């Protein structure tokens, strides 16, 4: 890589006293049940998986396999019904709603399939959104803005700062989302079908950016349908019926369908 986006200085969990220090995130026998009226949908049925620092994982599986539920749990958008999820050394199931918000803000960067930018904001303002929700609610300083501009530059949007999302192409919007995901310097990047709405050329560019982020030390967990995308990850996890069906390195095509 000729340029770096922004290397992660030090894995945040490293050296912490508990034995989860070596991992960015761990799932221990995690169950997740949804109640739909009288029915109970068992979306996850005892998933255990570790994500070491600097991991790059692609989660695959047919729809209904539980991969979205898994991603929501990993993103601290939800709590497990039973089992433990340890993120940055903290047991997520014991945290309050406000704590979860803080964790999402500080430890996780989200990238969505449909970009999920805020339509009325400019590129710069969109990148700044996570800064508004920092613990302590500090004001956005000049350095903060500088950093946002720098990140926009790194994803190739230095000249689009005042544009609104509808003025950008899909690839450009996803770059804004990546810059936004990076603004609080999180350890984990969660990507939900990051290239699902993009053509193959743009897909390549976005995947290259993600690869670069991983090389700089960030843990990347990505849900995807496409094997071409999944193959870029260091390892692949196949979900089926709420359980991890298989785990492997490359050669996933045959197992998907």
């Amino acid at each position, binding site marked *: 890589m000729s340029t770096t986006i922004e290397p992660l200085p030090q894995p945040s969990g490293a050296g912490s006293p508990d034995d989860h220090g070596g991992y960015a995130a761990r799932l221990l026998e995690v169950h997740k049940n949804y109640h739909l009226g009288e029915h109970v949908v068992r979306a996850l049925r005892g998933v255990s998986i570790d994500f070491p620092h600097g991991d790059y994982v692609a989660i695959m599986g047919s729809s209904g396999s539980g991969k979205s539920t898994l991603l*929501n749990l990993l*993103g601290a*958008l*939800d709590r497990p019904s039973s089992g433990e999820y340890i993120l940055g050394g903290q047991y997520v199931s014991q945290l309050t*709603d*406000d704590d979860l*918000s*803080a964790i*999402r*803000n*500080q430890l996780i960067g*989200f990238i*969505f399939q449909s970009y*999920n*930018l*805020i*339509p*009325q*904001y400019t590129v710069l*303002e969109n990148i700044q*959104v*996570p800064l*508004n*929700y*920092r613990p302590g*609610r500090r*004001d*956005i300083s000049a350095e903060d803005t500088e950093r946002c501009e720098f990140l926009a530059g790194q994803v190739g949007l230095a000249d689009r700062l005042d544009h609104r999302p509808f003025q950008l192409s899909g690839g450009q919007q996803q770059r804004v989302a990546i810059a*936004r995901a990076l603004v*609080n310097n999180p350890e984990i990047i969660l990507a939900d079908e990051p290239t699902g709405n993009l053509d193959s050329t743009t897909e390549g560019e976005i995947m290259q950016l993600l690869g670069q982020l991983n090389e700089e030390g960030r843990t990347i967990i990505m849900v995807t349908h496409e094997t071409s995308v999944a193959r870029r990850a260091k390892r692949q996890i196949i979900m089926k019926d709420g359980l991890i069906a298989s785990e492997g390195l490359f050669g996933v095509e045959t197992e998907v369908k």
Partner: protein
Amino acid sequence: MSNTLRTVQLALKSLMLHKLRSGLTMLGIVFGVYSVIAMLAIGEGASLQAQQQVLALGATNVIVVSKKPPLDGSNNANGARVLQYGLLRSDYRLLVETLPTLLGAVPIREIPSETRYLQKQLNARVVGCTADYLDMNRLQLARGRFITDQDQSQMANVAVIASDVADTLFPFEDPVGKSIQVKESRYKVVGVTRARTASAAIGGSLSGQDFNKDIYIPLRTCEVRIGDLVVNRSSGSFSAEQVELNQITLRVGSVDDVLPTAEAVRESLERTHRNKQDYDVVVPLELLRQANQIRQIFNIVLGSIAAISLVVGGIGIMNIMLATVTERTREIGIRRALGARQSDIIQQFLTETIVLSGSGGLIGVLFGLLTPFAFSGLRWFVLNFVLEASATDSPTGRLFADLHPQIAWWSLPVAFGISVGIGIAFGIYPARSAARMDPIEALRHE
């Protein structure tokens, strides 16, 4: 601090996304606030008008007026054709001699009479009075002099005329020095008074006292030339009234003396007049207190009516904010995913609502400041197109024509504050429903 500023700025940005919608929503509050201010201004103006009229009677005055006693048949039963009632000159002397708090007293005799100068004539009110009358009623002279004590003692045939009389009888001439005819005698005009606003109605009459159609002559001249007896002849029958004095205006030194003096006046007149009920004691200070009470009632009633429109505006805001929240479900999900707490979401939508209602309130206040102008336009329209020309002279017409809305300055911050309060009250529910959404569901929302 700059964070708050930024929140407001971002709220504005979201509101500007739907300019028409935000504008229309705001309009509800604009009209609500405007009507509160306008209603209070009109109420304030009306009460100020009443206050001025009462003050024109003099806050330190106690006024005793003669009134026709209720017809209980006793007079007619005696076969007397002459109705004798009212204050007597002896009453005047009694009051002046027995009340130590008095600074001055003016006895007045009023007789409506036709007045002539050459071909011109006018129905005026002839007022027999003393030199103190001018001061006591806060009249001012436009030219010439008023009646003097010397005129009294000489029973001089002099008259001071009021502005309307002067305008009618002497449209192109200087009245001073000319002779006018009242009843059988002629009087030399020695002065003209300035026009003055009418004072509050006293003694049960509906209209206020109009000083502009008066002719003042010395009281003793009046006694001698015109007399106490006024005879009305009408189609074959005639009736006569004998009245010595129509009114005695008493003045005391300080406001504190007013009520005890009035009490003393009531007591001493009670003794001399028994239960003839042919006089009234009018205390402007009491009227003023009544006027103040009426003002408060006015303000409360008008303010409440206007407040209803504010509430309607608030409901409009709530409606729109609920729609906005549904529409922006996904944005809420995004923000939650990026680390917003529930309280952040509440703050965001509440800020938007408050900015909306607050700016509506601000515009409403600005409109409210224009109330006096708007009202004078309305008055022009009503006087020219709605009321008939003759109605303008009626008490109601005059009330309307003389009404000048006064902006109650306290109502501006209050109305603005209420608009902000409405933003909070009607914004909290939509904001909370936004904050309580499940982030995952919200993110999935199309």
